């Protein structure tokens, strides 16, 4: 480890992995509830399990982003972190706030939670992915601003590189677009319109910049390819992301009451959204193919290549599958959306965080890379989780196509719950693929304790 203050990344990574486990356990509970409707009812109703599953995803990814930034920025800026103490304090504040929120979801009915947490003062709750109580939302803003202050001050006092500037742009964007979660107009069209400014402009906008900068950083370190070459690829990826992603928000405006022209704008620009992911895959493989050194951390390189491919498939291909307005007319809100969501989140954001953790954790533990035994275990976990996710996506896609046919295309359309009965086979198969994913995750955690012949000290 080049800078002592990089060590603050470690608790963030550990918390991220812990919350990831929670997300997957709730995913399995949800998967069972799709086929055994009263499983764990009334202790954990479906809507609560879903909320916990998606919120844990967001929170562990944010922990990963913050940990990654705390690790990367000192090295890029060639200086110690502005305030490691602030970073540690924020870690505990964020962890406690996140844990209390999850306990709140599970312990009391959602409406009671809203009452207890002052939702009547400023009504922000009740919207998908932004279900957090007002104090949690305010906490996120405070933590995000203090985190950005810390990171920005570090960059300002040190060297400015393209990679750190792109990361800052992504992180500031993340904070700014979260502010729209506080705007909850009575008019449902306006509500939905601006709700997407948080949700879409995060995952198909500024988060992609964070992904690009993390990927660029790890590729520079592991391949030894010239920084100038990697930075130029990064510029292209950032440009493509913003050009396609910002107006691509329109693919959420097809059916919410906005003017019809959004069907054109949304279709055209979101059809272009796979391009940055295409570029990212070519970028990652090209850099590894032209590597000038054999980095001992093979697992990190595998995650770097994997994130390119899986993000292209999940976000690019599966996104394109249902993004054109005439197709989306039939597929909107079906299991096809769930298939896309699963593979895109895993490929783009879970994998990039795992890549960063895979690269940084051994160094934070005092070695350049883990021993062979540990890396083999990690690579097994990579393949198990990735193949399981491919199958989860395929089964959900099959369920979605069937659902669309039975419920929307057929001359005698079936009611929603009847159609759900008919696609249970695919839900069962998805559940078993989910179990395989969990086994992969357990192997991933086991790889941290495998020991073996550690590579030279970092």
């Amino acid at each position, binding site marked *: 480890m080049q800078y002592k203050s990089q060590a603050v990344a470690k608790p963030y990574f550990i918390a991220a992995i812990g919350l990831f486990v929670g997300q997957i356990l709730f995913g399995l509970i949800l998967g069972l509830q799709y086929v055994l409707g009263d499983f764990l009812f009334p202790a954990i109703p479906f809507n609560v399990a879903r909320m916990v599953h998606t919120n844990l995803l967001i929170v562990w990814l944010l922990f990963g982003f913050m940990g990654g930034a705390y690790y990367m920025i000192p090295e890029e800026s060639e200086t110690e972190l502005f305030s490691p103490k602030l970073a540690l304090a924020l870690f505990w504040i964020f962890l406690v706030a996140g844990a209390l929120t999850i306990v709140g979801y599970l312990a009391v009915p959602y409406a009671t939670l809203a009452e207890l947490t002052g939702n009547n003062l400023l009504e922000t709750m009740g919207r998908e992915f932004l279900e957090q109580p007002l104090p949690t939302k305010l906490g996120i803003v405070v933590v995000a601003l203090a985190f950005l202050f810390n990171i920005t001050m570090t960059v300002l006092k040190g060297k400015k590189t393209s990679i750190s500037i792109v990361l800052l742009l992504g992180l500031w964007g993340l904070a700014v677009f979260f502010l729209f979660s506080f705007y909850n107009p009575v008019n449902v069209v306006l509500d939905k319109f601006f709700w997407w400014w948080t949700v879409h402009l995060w995952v198909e906008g500024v988060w992609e910049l964070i992904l690009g900068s993390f990927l660029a950083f790890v590729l520079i370190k592991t391949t030894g390819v010239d920084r100038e070459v990697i930075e130029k690829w990064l510029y292209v990826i950032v440009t493509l992301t913003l050009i396609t992603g910002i107006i691509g928000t329109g693919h959420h405006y097809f059916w919410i009451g906005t003017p019809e022209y959004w069907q054109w704008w949304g279709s055209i620009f979101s059809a272009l959204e796979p391009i940055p992911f295409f570029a990212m*895959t070519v970028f990652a493989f090209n850099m590894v193919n032209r590597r000038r050194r054999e980095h001992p951390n093979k697992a990190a390189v595998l995650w770097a290549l994997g994130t390119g491919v899986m993000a292209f*498939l999940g976000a690019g291909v599966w996104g394109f599958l249902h993004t054109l307005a005439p197709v989306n007319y039939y597929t909107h809100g079906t299991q096809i959306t769930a298939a896309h969501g699963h593979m895109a989140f895993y490929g783009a954001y879970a994998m990039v965080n795992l890549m960063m953790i895979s690269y940084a954790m051994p160094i934070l533990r005092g070695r350049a890379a883990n021993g062979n035994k540990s890396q083999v275990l990690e690579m097994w976990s990579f393949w198990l989780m990735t193949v399981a996710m491919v199958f989860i996506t395929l089964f959900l896609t099959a369920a979605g196509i*069937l659902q669309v046919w039975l419920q929307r295309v057929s001359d005698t359309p079936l009611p929603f719950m009847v159609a759900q009965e008919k696609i249970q086979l695919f839900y069962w198969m998805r559940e078993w693929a989910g179990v395989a994913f969990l086994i992969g995750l357990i192997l991933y955690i086991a790889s941290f304790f495998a020991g073996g012949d550690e590579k030279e000290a970092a």
Partner: protein
Amino acid sequence: MRPSDDDFGYTEEKPGQALAVLAEALFLINLLLLPGLAFLVLAGLWLHFRQSAPALARQHLKQATLVSLWGGLLIVCFAAGIVLAGGLDWEYTWVALILYFTCIHSTLVLFGMYALIKAMSGQVWRFPIIGPRLDGDA
């Protein structure tokens, strides 16, 4: 030496590298943007240069053209088979058809990306399973 401003990690280091990159780019354009039209250009290039181009370009032109043909056949024939076997009014026809098309098409695109990277690095590469055998001079 500091790379120039238009250096994206690709410089023509071997004879025929630009043509090899063009071949793989046309392979991808045929799959993603202009199906048929891009293939015609690709096939035309292969026919024109198959004797005269440097070995690297010849290999990539041959791989890209023949895999486009095989890929096209795989997509069209099996898709037609699925439709003929199940009929358009059966829901499982659409499940099989859409899943098949998405998987085979994505696989070809991913292989095409890898072939493009190999061409950019001045290396020959044989597409798995359906790629023609590499010539001895590669």
